[in-house]
């Protein structure tokens, strides 16, 4: 029973990591940009919820969605469009700078201490099935993630812009040569990425009851690990990676000896390094997809 309870925890945690990883994977696959600042999109979602705390929950959630998506588009326009032709390393450092910038702006405005937010508090109650207790929030996270995965999947298969995004992710220059508008595709990637980030922020605030300027940092680190494990550039990989990281994290928490549990994250990152040595391209990407001379 312990195992089953752990697995449910793992799946819902994995669901959130999957959403975060998808957000990162999207912008990477099209622009080769590893967006460190994705964590700050989550953070801003959190603070938007804080600012709108007097409103009904639905309004709060929608506000977060709107603000973060718009901010993501702004981020692309201001910080990343000028760097479009830059090397991946430059893009990475730039996103690091944007992340640092946004964190400190938030710290300046809201202070360094976490703020408390009452959000979706009824959902912290649990559904009881026999000996299992499953918090409603976790069920919701899992359910919403699965729905979103299905929706995104259809989006990329059946809509014109979705197909264009897939083409751009595979071969950006060729996509432009068949007439796919670069700006539109990149903007779409950032917009969806922002929406996903807002959903992650909604979950995090509901789970922790607050927001802080650092709340995106850890999430984005795990999201990276998840994307890399699944295979950067593969959306299914991001989702898979997210679930795997969630599962391993919970398993470590459950089965590590008492004294070692503090170092759970160290184990996680060490396993990540080991994984990189075994399969650096990720699980769902073929080894042959390497740069040809």
């Amino acid at each position, binding site marked *: 029973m312990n195992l089953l309870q752990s697995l449910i925890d793992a799946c819902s945690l994995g669901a959130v990591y999957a959403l975060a990883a998808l957000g990162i994977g999207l912008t990477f696959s099209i622009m080769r940009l590893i967006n460190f600042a994705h964590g700050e999109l989550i953070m801003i979602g959190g603070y938007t919820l804080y600012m709108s705390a007097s409103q009904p929950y639905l309004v709060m959630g929608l506000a977060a969605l709107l603000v973060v998506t718009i901010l993501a588009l702004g981020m692309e326009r201001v910080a990343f469009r*000028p760097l479009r032709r830059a090397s991946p390393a430059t893009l990475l*450092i730039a996103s690091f700078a944007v992340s*640092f910038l946004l964190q400190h702006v938030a*710290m*300046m405005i809201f202070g360094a201490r976490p703020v408390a937010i009452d959000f979706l508090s009824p959902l912290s109650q649990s559904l009881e099935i026999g000996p299992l207790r499953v918090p409603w929030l976790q069920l919701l996270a899992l359910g919403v993630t699965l729905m979103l995965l299905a929706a995104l999947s259809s989006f990329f298969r059946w809509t014109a812009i979705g197909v264009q995004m897939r083409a751009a992710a595979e071969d950006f220059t060729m996509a432009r040569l068949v007439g796919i508008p670069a700006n539109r595709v990149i903007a779409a990637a950032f917009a969806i990425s922002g929406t996903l980030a807002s959903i992650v922020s909604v979950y995090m605030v509901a789970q922790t009851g607050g927001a802080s300027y650092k709340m995106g940092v850890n999430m984005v680190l795990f999201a990276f690990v998840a994307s890399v494990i699944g295979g950067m550039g593969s959306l299914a990989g991001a989702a898979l990676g997210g679930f795997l990281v969630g599962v391993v994290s919970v398993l470590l928490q459950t089965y590590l000896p008492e004294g070692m549990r503090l*170092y759970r*994250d160290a184990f996680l990152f060490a396993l990540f*390094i080991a994984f*990189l040595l075994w399969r650096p391209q990720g699980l769902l990407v073929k080894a042959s997809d390497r740069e040809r001379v």
Partner: protein
Amino acid sequence: MAEPWAIERERKIRSCLLLAALIVLAAVLAALGPPALQRTVTEAIINLVVVLGMFIFVGNSGVLSFGHIAFMAVAGYSSAIMTIPPAKKAVLLKLPPSLEALQLPVGAAALIAAALTGLFALVVGAPIMRLKGIALPMATFGVLMVVHVVTANWQEVTGGRQALVGLPVYVNLWVALGAVLVTLAVAAAYKGSRRGLLLQCARENEVAATASGIDPARERLLAFVISAVFVGLGGVLFAHFIGTVTANTFYLNITFTTLAMLVVGGMRSLTGAVVGVAVVSTVSEIFRTIEKGVSIGDLTLSAPPGLQEIALALMMLLILIFRPQGLVGDFELDWPKWGRRKSAPAEPATTDQRVHGS
């Protein structure tokens, strides 16, 4: 007529000496100023040790490393454990008796800490240097995270979330100056050495380098270890400059700052590293002063905390957008070319002439 390589080597030595002279000049000027200025310059020089250390790896290999601050942590904590008086250690930590009783002279502790860090880098680096593309930076990032989690949680050895206090503060302007001159010399020597050149070949074109018999992984590992030793040294200096260390001392903030210094100046040259540290330190200091409050007559202007970091981040972004190669690019400092004829690059012979003539 001198051989081209001899001229080149002369130029490199001149460049290194000029940089050294500039740094010494800065230190001397600071020594004449108020203690606050001395502190600022000392901190800048310590940062320069770290950045030069990073440059040894990042500049020569072209590979971004996020994990270097882990070496600062390893060395900083090692030196702390070896130099904090045993009485204090007994209170703060729970070390095995041999370590608790250990107290070494600071110089020895610094050297041992740096050496240990090099060893750590060897062990950790050996398996990961084969990774290609984005995987290697990500792996170094994983190293940073592992070290951070361990230092933040290993109560018995590092004090965990609490600050480790009681480190002997022996680092002043002159100690830092000595360290940076040594680091500069090693960085310059490596950059101009044969091994350094092999690594730079791998940086420019890995396939061609491999085809020429170079083992990129091995060259990178060498640079990684040397780099770790000096970044570690920077960590030791920092720890003994401030007198306390916590897990957060050597984590994301300083990763960002040092990376910014490297990028702003230019990742490809030593001059870039020096310029980067100088510019970033100056800008940071200006904004730090503004944050504290500047009094103009009866008014006191001050800014909320965080302005310094915001200014730094904005500066970095602007540089990346408008001058991605950094302020200095490839350039290495030299005497201005007065009265020396510039040799024009040879124009490749166009085939047109040969085709149409007969």
